[in-house]
């Protein structure tokens, strides 16, 4: 019975979305307040009904209701409870339902918290948001109904892909979707502004918190996904430039550009059409990601079960939403009056450079991701794949100047900056960065030049970010209590920027350390075999068969010592899930700030005399890899601090009160 309730709730949500996509926007055109206000209740209604559908599906998973096809295909009665719950969004249908739920949550959040937004803009925004809802609800009801039944019901289900049975991964899609889909509301704001024909500082200020919230979730989602790949896949890497990783990374890059260009629109009333374009493109890239993952267009480890009908439907959706919004942009953008002027050396110019580099980087990732498809189409069927060498060779050279600009940008003042004065202040930072790099070079005994260049820029970013913060609060210049008082008075968004920029520098230490100074050994081992790696002596003591709730495993025991002293034991496992007929690698990791010692085992493929009783051991030492996760956490926290800034929360003033000149330069 519950699945039918869920199905019916989806239909009701669609009905509400249809009303909301017409009534409020018409009301805004005619000045009919009642029609405009109807958006509030239909937004709540949508989230209510989609929420019911979501809970109904979850109930089917939790109670292992094997009359529901989706549960049969993606769950199993033996599965631990956490993964039964997570199974709700483990399949194409379920994740689409989650997608739609988050879409409606953002609509309702604007209806609930957007009391400072003018009624007409809010009504238009919510109507646009409802258009997206209509698209996805019909997609679900017509092609991907999660509540389809099976008859006769089987005894047990086929189990969720065991690789996906991991706590980090259970949380990864919801966070990623909050980011992905969160940009929908920014898109709706942009389209509404184009329809209204008015973009100004106040608009940018209303949009910024939503952009920030979406960006934070996306950052956390990507970091979690990368963390999962590192711990679960057993390859010892954290980023593979897989098409599906790329499609989540592109909205992040674009969203980061948007975050910064919206600042210029807010403070200086400039970059208006650019900000609007970025808002449209960021969500377009999210939609593109959905399309690529669900259409089987490219080959990837992530792809869902493929169905051409679905692919065609989403492509239609893409054509209408992206094509429509870009056509609207082409029509309306030229009429937007340009904003404040600025000199080539100024905060605006710095942010422009940031935007151009981020957009270029996005373009590179987009091109590299889709090149196999273009190539195949152009040559009539020949295939190739684009791998890490392309991305490393093209993406990194764009990111390095960006990191340099990031160190410089916050020192520049709006309109016109004094470059000589800024460089004067940064002398100390340059010296420090060079010294730190030289010390590393001395300690690490060699490595590629590009590695040291990247490292120097990471140090530069780190020190210059801290220096800027210290300067603002007059640390060591004024008495300490004075500095504390200044730190308290500094806007939180300012602290947020410091934390986020320093976080990126931290993450860079991790990227560089674990790429440049990584060491790896792959060998056959028998009980008693010893390996030396990264200053550790690892002894393989043997392997045994162990049992888990829905799997059995071969577990190896490794004894780790350093200079003769016992450090720890590691237990890498090779798990076999009999129901899903899959094996997974559970690597064992000894994690410290200095680096991770990472071990995984497998049976040798062919048993002959030379490999009898032997195991394949893969052991890696990845220096500084944990800095990546710490840096990512700092990025998210920095976003959170900015989001909690007074300016964004309360009294974001009405249009008249925001003459840009009245704001202090930051």
């Amino acid at each position, binding site marked *: 019975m519950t699945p039918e309730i869920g199905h019916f709730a989806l239909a009701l949500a669609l009905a509400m979305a249809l009303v909301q996509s017409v009534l409020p926007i018409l009301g805004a055109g005619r000045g009919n307040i009642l029609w405009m206000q109807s958006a509030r209740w239909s937004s709540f209604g949508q989230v209510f009904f989609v929420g019911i559908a979501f809970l109904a599906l979850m109930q089917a998973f939790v109670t292992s209701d094997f009359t529901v096809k989706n549960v049969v295909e993606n769950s199993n009665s033996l599965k631990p409870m956490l993964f039964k719950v997570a199974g709700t969004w483990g399949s194409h249908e379920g994740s689409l339902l989650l997608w739609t739920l988050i879409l409606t949550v953002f609509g309702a959040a604007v209806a609930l918290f957007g009391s400072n937004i003018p009624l007409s803009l809010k009504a238009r925004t919510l109507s646009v948001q409802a258009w997206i809802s209509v698209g996805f609800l019909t997609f679900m009801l017509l092609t991907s109904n999660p509540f389809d039944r099976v008859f006769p019901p089987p005894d047990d289900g086929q189990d969720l892909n065991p690789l996906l049975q991991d706590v980090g991964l259970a949380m990864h899609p919801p966070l990623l979707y909050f980011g992905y889909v969160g940009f929908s509301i920014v898109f709706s704001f942009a389209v509404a502004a184009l329809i209204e024909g008015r973009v100004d500082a106040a608009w940018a200020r209303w949009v910024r918190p939503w952009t920030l919230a979406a960006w934070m979730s996306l950052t956390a989602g990507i970091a979690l996904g990368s963390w999962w790949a590192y711990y679960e896949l057993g390859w010892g890497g954290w980023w593979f430039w897989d098409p599906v990783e790329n499609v989540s990374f592109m909205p992040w890059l674009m969203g980061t550009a948007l975050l910064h260009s919206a600042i210029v629109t807010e403070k200086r009333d400039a970059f208006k059409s650019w900000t609007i374009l970025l808002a449209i493109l960021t969500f377009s890239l999210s939609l593109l990601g959905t399309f690529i993952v669900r259409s089987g267009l490219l080959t990837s480890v992530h792809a869902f079960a493929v169905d051409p009908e679905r692919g065609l439907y989403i492509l239609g959706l*893409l054509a209408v939403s992206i094509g429509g919004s*870009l056509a609207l942009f082409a029509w309306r953008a030229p009429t937007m009056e340009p904003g404040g002027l600025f000199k080539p050396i100024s905060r605006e110019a710095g942010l422009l450079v940031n935007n151009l580099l981020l957009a270029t980087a996005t373009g590179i990732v987009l091109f590299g991701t889709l090149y196999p498809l273009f190539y195949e189409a152009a040559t009539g069927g020949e295939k190739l794949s684009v791998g890490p060498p392309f991305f490393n060779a093209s993406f990194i050279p764009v990111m390095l100047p960006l990191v340099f600009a990031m160190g410089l940008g916050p020192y520049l003042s709006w309109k016109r900056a004094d470059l000589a004065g800024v460089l004067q202040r940064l002398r100390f930072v340059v010296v420090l960065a060079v010294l730190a790099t030289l010390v590393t070079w001395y300690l690490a005994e060699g490595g590629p030049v590009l590695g040291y260049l990247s490292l120097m820029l990471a140090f530069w970013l780190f020190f210059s970010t801290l220096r800027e913060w210290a300067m603002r609060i007059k640390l060591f210049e004024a008495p300490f209590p004075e500095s504390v008082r200044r730190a308290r008075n500094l806007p939180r968004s300012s602290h947020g920027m410091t934390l986020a920029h320093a976080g990126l520098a931290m993450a860079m230490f991790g990227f560089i350390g674990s790429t440049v100074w990584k060491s790896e050994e792959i060998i056959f081992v028998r009980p008693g075999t010893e390996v030396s790696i990264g200053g550790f002596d690892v002894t393989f003591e043997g392997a045994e068969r162990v049992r888990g709730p829905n799997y059995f495993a071969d577990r190896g025991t490794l004894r780790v010592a350093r200079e003769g002293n016992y450090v720890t034991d590691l237990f890498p496992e090779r798990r076999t899930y009999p129901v899903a007929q899959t094996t997974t690698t559970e690597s064992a990791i000894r994690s410290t700030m200095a680096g991770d010692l990472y071990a995984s085992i497998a049976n040798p493929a062919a048993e002959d005399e030379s490999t009898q009783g032997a195991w394949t051991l893969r052991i890696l030492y990845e220096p500084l890899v944990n800095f990546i996760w710490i840096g990512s956490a700092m990025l998210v926290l920095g976003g959170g601090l900015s989001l909690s800034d007074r300016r964004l929360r309360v009294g974001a003033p009405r249009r008249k009160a925001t003459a840009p000149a009245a704001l202090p330069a930051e």
Partner: protein
Amino acid sequence: MGRILAFIPLAIAAIFGGFFLWGLNPDRDPNNIPSVLISQPAPEFDLAAVDGLETPGLSRADLVGNPRPVIVNVFASWCVPCRAEHGVLTQMVEKDGLTLFGINYKDKPEDATKWLAELGNPYERIGSDLSGRVGIEWGLSGVPETFIVGSDGTVLFRYVGPVVGETAISTFREALIQAGALARGQNG
């Protein structure tokens, strides 16, 4: 000017859309990697032996005129799956009496020598493809890859990835039988 600029995003999006529509063709399978070499003569190449190894080098002439079709395996010491595949290939040589040639792909000679010393050397001939040039001729998509070449020098079969595990081995054995290198029912 501004008007034209504003149309650029839309135009680019439309081009992308065209490619996507083409890509959705249901007959298209992005995972299927065809080989232009199947039923074609093997490419012309002449590779020197691996430095420090007694096994002779490999050229196209060695592929022609063998009594039975031969296996050409592309391997490298840096390639993890090759290590797993090595035992399977060794068995095919030792138990089935097949002829195995190797192309050592982008590998340091000393590493390759060490690797073969550790695992054993089932290869009759090994060509050292340091630059990866010959790999391009063969249309490699990665390492390992294994080809079956007929006595007239025609490429009969290509296997992408390691020949490891039941399914892969039976697919490969079936291809060997089809090629006439193995008799049906001959067990390894």
